[in-house]
Structures are given as C-alpha cells and as structure tokens.
C-alpha cells in the first residue's frame, strides 16, 4: 500500500528518533566518546582559564560554548566509522528511510550528548559558583541550535569513507582546534584586532560564544538573532557535504 507524505514524514521522524536513542544507549560509555566528547571541553576550559581572573558567569558562558562545540562535534567522527567497521551501519543504510533521516538521527545523538554535558556544566556553574543566567530562553535556544550545528559539523568527518575511527579523529581534531583558536572564546571579540576579528567570524564557535555571552552575561558583540541564524544555517550547510560523502561511500563500497 502506498503511504501518504504525512505518514512517510511521521515514519522518518520516528526512525531518526530511534537511531538517536539507540546511539545514546550504545555509545555513551565508549572510551572514545568519554575522552573526545565528555572530558575534552573541560580540559580545554581549565587549560585556558585556570589562574586567570574571571567572573563565574563569564566562566560558565565560556564552558557552555566549549562543551556544546566539542561534545556535539565528537559524536559523528567516532560513531559512524565504528559502525561501518562493526557492520551495523549497513543495517541503517539498508533500512527504509532516507539518508537525510539517518543523518538527522546521527546529528541528534551529538546534540543529546552536548546538551547533557552542558547541563552538568550549567548546574555546577549556577549552584556551586552562583553564576546568574540573564536570558534562560536564549540559553535554551542557543544550546539546542549550537548542539545541532556542531553535531552536523562532526557528521562531515563521520562521513569520510573509512572504517577506522582513527583515520577520522586526526582531521576532525585539527579542524576543531583550528576553529577554536580563531574564535572569540579565549580572546573576546571586542579585544581582537580587526583582521583577527574578521577571521574569527569564519568560525561558527564565535557565534556560539557570543550567543552564550548574551544568554549568561546579558551582553554580546553581535545580535543574538544573528548568532542563532548563523548557527542554524551552518548546521544545515554542514549536512550537504555529509550527504555527498555518503553518496561517495556508497560508490566506493564503505
């Protein structure tokens, strides 16, 4: 029986959700995920923040940007090559769902992890250090949109035709660190030279940090709507190379 588009849409949403929930159950305790996804943002934060004078709220804003960025972007490069190696990715590719549905499900996994880790950072910041939150609604929107965007960034690397997560980790880490160092996380945008600021605008993390500054501190350099729009747009844009590389993988037999 031919199903209507609404039924098909419902099916695809349920399938993407099932993929995401399954991945959360299967991978949250994997060493690679713990190391690159859960611990890395805290290492980065403490490396660049200890012994520097900083208000609690400023620290929370920075930590949230880092956790959203590192945790969300870590899932794709770890999970997809591992599933290719174990053969379980074939199960997903052979299932009656579109490639976009599968990728959105995978993007949701990174987003779930990022939101969970960010929630821990937020609770510690608010409860233990008394950091105020200026705009809780904006914070929620920023965490959701930022997590999606950076998770989609991770999918680009997860889509590289390989069955070895190690092949993907190096380029993925290089890019993430590059985007981190040109962004306005460690040096505020307003303190940057014009040329450095122009480069910083190339990193989506800059917009995530600015958005967190608005949400937590109540002030940022750009407008929060622009931050949200750029994060959402870049997230959608990141899906395109992921789709193209999956098509290439299908030609190559991965």
């Amino acid at each position, binding site marked *: 029986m*031919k199903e209507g588009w609404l039924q098909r849409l419902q*099916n695809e949403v*349920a*399938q993407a959700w*099932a*993929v995401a929930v*399954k991945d959360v*159950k*299967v991978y949250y305790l994997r060493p690679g995920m713990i190391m690159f996804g859960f611990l890395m943002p805290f290492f980065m934060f403490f490396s660049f923040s200890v012994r520097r004078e900083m208000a609690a709220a400023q620290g929370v804003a920075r930590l949230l940007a880092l956790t959203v960025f590192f945790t969300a972007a870590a899932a794709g490069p770890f999970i997809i090559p591992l599933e290719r190696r*174990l*053969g*379980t990715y*074939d*199960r*997903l*590719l*052979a*299932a*009656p*769902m*579109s490639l976009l549905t599968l990728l959105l499900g995978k993007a949701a996994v990174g987003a779930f992890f990022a939101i969970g880790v960010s929630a821990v950072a937020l609770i510690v910041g608010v409860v233990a250090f008394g950091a105020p939150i200026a705009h809780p609604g904006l914070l929620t929107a920023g965490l959701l949109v930022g997590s999606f965007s950076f998770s989609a960034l991770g999918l680009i690397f997860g889509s590289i035709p390989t069955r070895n997560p190690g092949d993907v980790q190096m380029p993925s880490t290089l890019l993430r660190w590059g985007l981190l160092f040109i962004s306005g996380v460690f040096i505020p945008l307003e303190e940057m030279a014009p040329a450095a600021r122009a480069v910083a605008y190339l990193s989506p993390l800059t917009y995530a940090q600015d958005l967190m500054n608005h949400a937590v501190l109540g002030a940022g350099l750009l407008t929060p709507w622009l931050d949200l729009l750029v994060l959402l747009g870049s997230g959608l844009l990141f899906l395109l190379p992921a789709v193209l590389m999956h*098509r290439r993988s*299908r*030609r*190559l*037999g991965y």
Partner: protein
Amino acid sequence: MDNAIEVSGLTKYYGDLLAVDHISFEVRRGEIFGFLGPNGAGKTTTQRMLTTLLEPTEGRIIIHGHDLARDPYPVKRQMGLVPEESNVYTELTAWENLMFTAILYRVPRSERAARARELLETFGLWEKRDVKVENFSKGMRRRLSIAMAIIHKPTLLFLDEPTPGLDAQSARVIRDLIRRLNAEGTTIFLTTHQIEEANLLCDRVAIIDHGRIAAIDTPERLKAAFRRVQSVEVALEPDGQAHGPALEALPGVTTTVKMGDKWRLYTEDPSALLPRVVRYAEEHGLRVVSLNTLGPSLEDVFLEITGQQVGVVRHETEAGGGKQRGRGMRRRQ
C-alpha cells in the same frame, strides 16, 4: 514469469578493478536462489548492490517491479538482510535489538512486542531476551541477526553465508528456518560458498566466477550437465592406499582423489570402469571392501565450472604443491 529480482548488465568497478562484469539473471518469486562462487568472485559485491548498499557502475536491478536506482524505498520495506557478520548491537539486549529494528522497519506499535516474542521463542532466545548481546555465543548472535532481518515479515530475504562457523545444531536450526520462511512465501537469495548447503536448500543456483555468471540452473540439472565428473569409489585391502597411481592408469579414469581410506576414480563411464576395478583387485590379490558409483556432486560441478579440474587441485595440495588460480577482480580493459 513472476520474478522477484531481475538483474540486467550489472557491473561494478572499484577504480580500475572489475569486480562484477555485466551479469544478468532473474530470481523467481518464492524460490530459494543460491548464489555460489569462490572467495573474491563477486558474490558479496553483487548482493550489496541488490540491497542498495553499493552503487552499481552500470546495469539495472528491478525488485518486485521497482527500479532499485529510482525507487528504493518500497523495495527496502519488503526486503530483509542478513549479512555475513552478525551486525547486532552488542551493548543492547536481544529485546532492545529487535525493538529497534521493528521501529526502523515501521512494524505497527501494537504488533512489535508479539512479533519479537514469537521470533525469540522460535530461535530459542526468549529466556535470554534481557541479556546483553555481548554475552551471546556466535550461534545466538547469528539467530538474533536473522530474527532482526525478518521482524517486518519481508517478502525477500538476503542471506550472506548464514552458517559458516556455527556448530552443527545452530546450522541446522538456521537451515530449517530458511525452509520454513520459504514455505511461507518468502523469496530467499542465499549467497554462499558452501556447496552442500546450496545443494540442500536451493531451487536454483547461479555460479559466479571472476565477476561473471558461469552457470545458472537447478542443482540436479547442473549435475546432469557434467556427466564427465561421475565417479567410482573403491576401498581395497590390504594396503589399498598404495594403489592410487595404478588405479589412475586404468582405461577410462580421468583423475583419482584419495578420500580417507578410499579412492575416488573420476570417469565419464562408470559402468565400463566397474569391472576393470574388480579385475584389478583380483589380479593383485586385493579384497574389495566397498565399491560404489557416484553421480557428480554440486561441488564437482562447481569446481569444473570455476576452472579447478576435479581432483587435481586437492591431489596436488595434498602433495604440497597446491595449485591456486588467480581469482577475483580484473583490471579495466
């Protein structure tokens, strides 16, 4: 003819290497179709193209009337896939694995639990439903993998090497299940290099070699087409093992192969060879312990078709001079 699968001109290159070379065949609805071939002959590549996992370089695949390249969605809903490696989620329980697959294949919510229970009971896994699959044996994982592939009651099931490495009991359970599914109307596409398995299960077999279909027919017709690989099997005493070369020299014998304490003498005319063997035994004071004529086995046919002369390869291998032909992919011309 009502076909489940129609393949025409299917070709796959990996770069310059030709893995599957313009093959065409049909699989009839409701049959068990065996896809046989040596390692590297193109079996799994073909199966991956049929299941949408690999994009063909050329050719067309029609499954249940749908062009797979243009309209894969309805085909995917009707097919189940059991790959060579049991691709189950070891961190999940058997129950969770089945529920996840049921959602992927849109089994109605009201039917999922009953269907999962039915399958777990059928495969003897019901008592282990809440155990993480990482604690399962290879045979249990295989059974779960098959259960996951059929939870949505597919009309077409692809099985890639379903029994190698399993104990005899698990292998039998799986063969019985394949027969039962087929009896219920499921078309089975069985990829295997286990010739006896294909002989036991398949309505028709295709033999693929070097990326090309070398033969396609029922097992019995294939055997009938290879009368030259009929044989006479004889066990002689005393010291029957020493008489192989002399038996090979008998008129009409093409090859001899040692089979345990027996010799198998390949011939085109077993009835003419039988009295010669008996005469040889009498002349040399030997007792004939057993004497049988054998038709060609599917293995004999397979070896003939794939270019390994019956007996010769095994004979030479036993002598330490194993002859292996180069096999598998060829470079683009």
